[in-house]
């Protein structure tokens, strides 16, 4: 019998949607440079602009409000970079506003780039979150001021799935005259995202989290807001992001979103059933567990669990041997020894943070997959705990 393989790490990345594969294959002949005036160039240009229109439609933006980038990380870096714009051509009217507000649970690309800005003189405030990962609105209200230029709060958290009150935070931001950005890489294509309804100024998204190709991201920039390019030197994207367009990536992203439109709402309901099933089984079969993330305002595809006295990497690798691919709350496996900043920010002790596992479902996930996990997981946890010197926890 061939070994069963179950991929439950969709928040890390996803396989290509079959329809995206087809679209990419069809688009492979399209090699012209969209900047060229000849037929080859015009054909590419037309395909890109069609994709832009479709993508804009998906998030209720105007086509010229969508910029293509190399990744969600690049989109996020681009927005933060605006704060230190020193170019007179960019029209970033700083005035007395020069501060950034963000949260403690943002993706590392926000935390690292804001840290860099901080070292270069931009004051940065990191708003705390509650035990479910919800940004502390009261603290935001206290910290935001006439000096605030930009507020950047993620829409859905990659590790624990918590969905932030972006609309409310955007309103508070605008009431105080600042710009609002949301990193929606984990949200676009999983929950409805409407930039007009949310009233955001910038919104980052990415293709590879939603069955599109890697190496292509998107950034919504509201047409009236100031902007400063991160990558300069070309007129592409109306001078807002230089570099010859990633034609295949753009077409793949558009197709991925088109498929999301068809599939996501049904899928979200299905995942919710699986999530409840998996959660209940873990509670019933495994002692000393706790769940991370908001109980209701959360991606239905994400379940994050802490197993007391069990180190995450060991769990991950034993599950891998059973054919189950998950991710840990500790970044230990990926080279750092620190527990996840998100889990620490929601108030978990280092032990619970080190013992956290994230299951993230995707469109191919079946009930049988979940049942297979339910069958294997208790044995794996028992094995790790049998080896562990920290289980049962000594008082």
């Amino acid at each position, binding site marked *: 019998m061939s070994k069963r393989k179950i991929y439950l790490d969709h928040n890390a990345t996803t396989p290509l949607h079959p329809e995206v594969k087809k679209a990419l294959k069809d688009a492979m002949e399209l090699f012209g440079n969209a900047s060229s005036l000849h037929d080859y160039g015009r054909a590419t240009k037309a395909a890109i602009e069609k994709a832009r229109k479709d993508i804009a439609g998906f998030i209720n933006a105007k086509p010229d409000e969508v910029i293509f980038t190399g990744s969600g990380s690049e989109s996020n870096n681009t927005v933060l970079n605006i704060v230190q714009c020193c170019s007179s051509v960019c029209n970033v009217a700083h005035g007395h506003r020069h501060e950034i507000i963000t949260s403690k649970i943002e993706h590392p690309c926000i935390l690292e780039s804001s840290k860099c800005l901080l070292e270069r003189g931009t004051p940065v405030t990191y708003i705390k979150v509650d035990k479910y990962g919800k940004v502390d609105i009261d603290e935001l209200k206290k910290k935001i001021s006439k000096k605030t230029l930009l507020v950047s709060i993620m829409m859905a958290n990659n590790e624990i799935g918590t969905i932030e009150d972006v609309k409310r935070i955007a309103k508070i931001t605008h009431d105080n005259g600042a710009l609002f950005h949301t990193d929606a890489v984990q949200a676009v294509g999983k929950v409805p995202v409407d930039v007009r309804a949310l009233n955001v100024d910038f919104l980052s998204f990415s293709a590879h989290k939603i069955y599109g190709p890697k190496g292509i991201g998107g950034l919504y920039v509201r047409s009236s807001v100031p902007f400063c390019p991160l990558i300069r030197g070309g007129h592409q994207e109306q001078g807002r992001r230089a570099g010859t367009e990633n034609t295949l990536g753009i077409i793949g992203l558009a197709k991925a979103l088109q498929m999301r439109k068809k599939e996501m709402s049904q899928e979200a309901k299905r995942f919710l059933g699986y999530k409840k099933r998996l959660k209940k089984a873990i509670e019933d079969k495994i002692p000393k567990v706790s769940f991370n993330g908001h109980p209701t305002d959360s991606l239905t595809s994400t379940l994050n669990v802490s197993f007391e006295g069990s*180190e995450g990497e060991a769990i991950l690798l*034993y599950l891998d041997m059973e054919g189950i691919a998950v991710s840990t709350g500790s970044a230990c*496996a990926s080279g750092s*020894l620190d527990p996840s900043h998100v889990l620490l920010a929601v108030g978990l002790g*280092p032990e619970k943070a080190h013992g956290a596992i994230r299951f993230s479902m995707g469109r191919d996930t079946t009930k049988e997959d979940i049942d297979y996990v339910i069958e294997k997981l208790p044995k794996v946890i028992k094995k790790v705990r*049998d*080896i562990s010197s920290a*289980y049962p926890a000594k008082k």
Partner: protein
Amino acid sequence: MDKSNIWVYSDKIKKHFTQPKNLLDDEKKYKEDGKGIVGNIKCGDQMLMVIKVDKDKHTITDCKWKTYGCASAIASTSILSEMVKGMKINEAYKLSPKDIASKLGGLPEHKIHCSVLGDKALRAAIDDYYKRNGMEERIKKEKAKIVCQCMNVTDLEIEHAVLEGTRTYLELQEKTKIGTVCGQCKPETLKLLDKYIKQHFDK
């Protein structure tokens, strides 16, 4: 090193991780001659090691353990428990992290500290054995005192770094990796750094 591929671990590590040897099943029933616990859960690794000793031959006859930690921590404790069986106690006392890592066929750089805990746990167990048998004089009081528990950096290493030109906390971190995990040791490190700089370079 390719950090994305976790099985940069050798086959040997994989083997000891999947089928750990000499696991301590029942702590209460095991009549050990020495017991050591090192590490802390905050940093993600903790080890418990127990040994039995042939008191006439000064030889370790049995070694069992439990580890809270990642694959390399588990594997390195497992292989260490194999290595020390039948070993003279004074030889076992001298085992270094390097000995364990090389027996495992090498460890990824960022995982070295996991195996560092193994030899410390063993020495703690042997020290305990010495204490229980009135041989306290054999306990090697390490001249160096560990400042950073996570990366196993001692005050002597800080002093050496200062003598070699280190002046700031960042430089010291680059050189020794001190305080790069939980960061608890930063205040003490800063004091020591200041002390050695003054001691050696202030006129």
